[in-house]
């Protein structure tokens, strides 16, 4: 079954090192559509990533830095990349050795289609 986000999700998950991609409602933290691997908890990733992105956006505004763009979280075994607007956030889960530059470019392109 396809959704308006299927093409964006497929494009992102085809990138080397990307293990999951989700389109999340920014305010609710609920996944609208996602490409996940077996065993990944999409609901949990969506809720926590959206919370992180909201807090980052509030922090940037509080510091007088304007809107938040690309947000990247580096963990021991991979990274979480987020990009979005006031309504939808694109969340990508990637391995440590994934090409972040390429992911970032593709996420910017995808985010334009989302908003």
């Amino acid at each position, binding site marked *: 079954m396809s959704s308006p986000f299927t093409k964006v999700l497929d494009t992102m998950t085809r990138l080397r090192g990307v293990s999951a991609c989700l389109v999340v409602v920014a305010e*609710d*933290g609920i996944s609208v559509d996602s490409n996940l691997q077996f065993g990944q908890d999409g*609901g949990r990733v969506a*809720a926590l990533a959206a919370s992180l992105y*909201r807090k980052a956006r509030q922090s940037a505004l509080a510091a007088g830095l304007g809107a938040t763009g690309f947000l990247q979280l580096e963990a021991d075994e991979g990274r979480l990349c987020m990009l979005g607007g006031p309504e939808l956030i694109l969340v990508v889960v990637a391995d440590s050795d994934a090409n972040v530059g390429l992911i970032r470019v593709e996420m910017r392109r995808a985010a334009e289609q989302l908003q």
Partner: protein
Amino acid sequence: MIKAAVEPWVEEPLGKFVKDAGVRLALLLLPSGQVMAQYGFTRALDVMSACALAAAIFASSGEMGKLLQGKSFSALHAGGNPQFFLAEAQTARGPYIFLTVFDQESSLGLVRVFYDEFKARLAAAAPPPVSQEPVLASNFEGELNRNLAFLFGRA
């Protein structure tokens, strides 16, 4: 002094939920409307009103769910600011109703994720069932007042 729970086994799961989900208010009650635990309320009267309304909403929406889909709704959410989330939690002690109120500091996604954890913790912490007297109109108010007095330091 405001206590969190009438029965101590409820305190840890409720405290963890509140901390993780970042909600403003939380309430655990029996389907009859008697309070079992609370977080964030400062007045016994507010707890009593919230319990009565939550029990009524849950009962009526449960019947609505049965009419529409043959079974009760598992959870209810009202948007806006603040938002509320109402759901049932099953334990060995029987069913409980859980109500939580949250604002922009949290989200429905976070509440749902941590509510699932809360439900599992509550079920694991619940002691074996005890034979309970049926809730009768004659003893309902006495038990309700006893629980409220315990939570708000008048016991």
